[in-house]
């Protein structure tokens, strides 16, 4: 039994506890959560360096493209929030960052739609992956709301036009009582606080679900007997491709 950690040259507390007959207190809620999390998503599964062979296709690139665009969207949004509308409408740097924010959103929505089409035609909800599919759908819907409130937060004639055009549609649903598209203060708070928090949380769950269940397996070829990973509901396919 190793009592001294060779790296730190200090006694390892877990070893000391075992030697002293003090087992880990598995009843602690922190230990329960930690053990459950590590068991479900060990580090090599959370950040894998191998993927199934069938993932070697460009159609699998659009999910990570969406996340990369989201990182740029949030980064540029943070910069815009520091300096405000006078800066992003007037200064050349502000206009540049404003454009980066807009075009990263365009890439975000573009890549997300292609990702959605790809997953739809793969029936990516197979094999206990319904939660992965549903969180993807919800993140898409919330993203539409975030983009919409972003257009309302531009502080220009375009945002005025969009809000006055949208109000009748929103009011006809009854939602206008609590969601007033002509209320700039409310719209910008939804845009920079509520909806980004929702998107990051849902996308985070979505990615964890992908890591937990693995990428959906392809449909069986003609003549091939079904019953692969997707049908059996196993976690992830054979990881053979570097």
């Amino acid at each position, binding site marked *: 039994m190793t009592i001294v950690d060779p790296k730190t040259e200090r006694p390892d507390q877990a070893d000391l506890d075992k030697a002293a007959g003090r087992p880990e207190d598995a009843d602690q809620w922190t230990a329960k959560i930690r053990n459950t999390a590590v068991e479900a998503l060990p580090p090599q599964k959370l950040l894998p360096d191998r993927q199934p*062979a069938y993932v070697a296709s*460009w*159609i699998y*690139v659009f999910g990570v493209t969406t996340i990369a665009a989201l990182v740029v969207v949030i980064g540029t949004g943070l910069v815009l929030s520091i300096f405000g509308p006078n800066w992003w409408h007037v200064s050349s740097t502000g206009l540049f960052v404003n454009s980066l924010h807009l075009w990263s959103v365009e890439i975000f929505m*573009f890549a997300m739609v292609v990702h959605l*089409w*790809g997953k739809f035609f793969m029936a990516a909800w197979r094999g206990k992956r319904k939660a992965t599919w549903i969180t993807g759908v919800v993140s898409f819907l919330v993203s539409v709301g975030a983009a919409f409130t972003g257009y309302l937060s531009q502080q220009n004639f375009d945002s005025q036009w969009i809000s006055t055009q949208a109000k009748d549609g929103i009011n006809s649903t009854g939602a206008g009582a609590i969601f007033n598209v002509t209320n700039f203060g409310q719209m910008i708070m939804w845009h920079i606080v509520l909806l980004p928090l929702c998107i990051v949380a849902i996308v985070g769950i979505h990615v964890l679900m992908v890591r937990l269940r693995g990428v959906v397996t392809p449909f069986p070829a003609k003549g091939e007997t079904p019953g692969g990973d997707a049908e059996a509901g196993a976690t992830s396919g054979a990881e053979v*491709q*570097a």
Partner: protein
Amino acid sequence: MSSAAIVLGTLFGSLIDLNKPGNYIHWGFIQMSYGNLLVILLMVIVFFAAILIPFRSHKGGER
């Protein structure tokens, strides 16, 4: 403005001019700007290209 920006602006501007009222297509009850139609067509093209174009893995395409 730099000459490169002018050239690029002219090239892209000749494709879609966003500095004027948008042009819309009307298919029955469907009304859509040419800009939005272009984005949808691009998504369709990229979708099929992603399926058809071979993906080179780290091992030079070996699987």
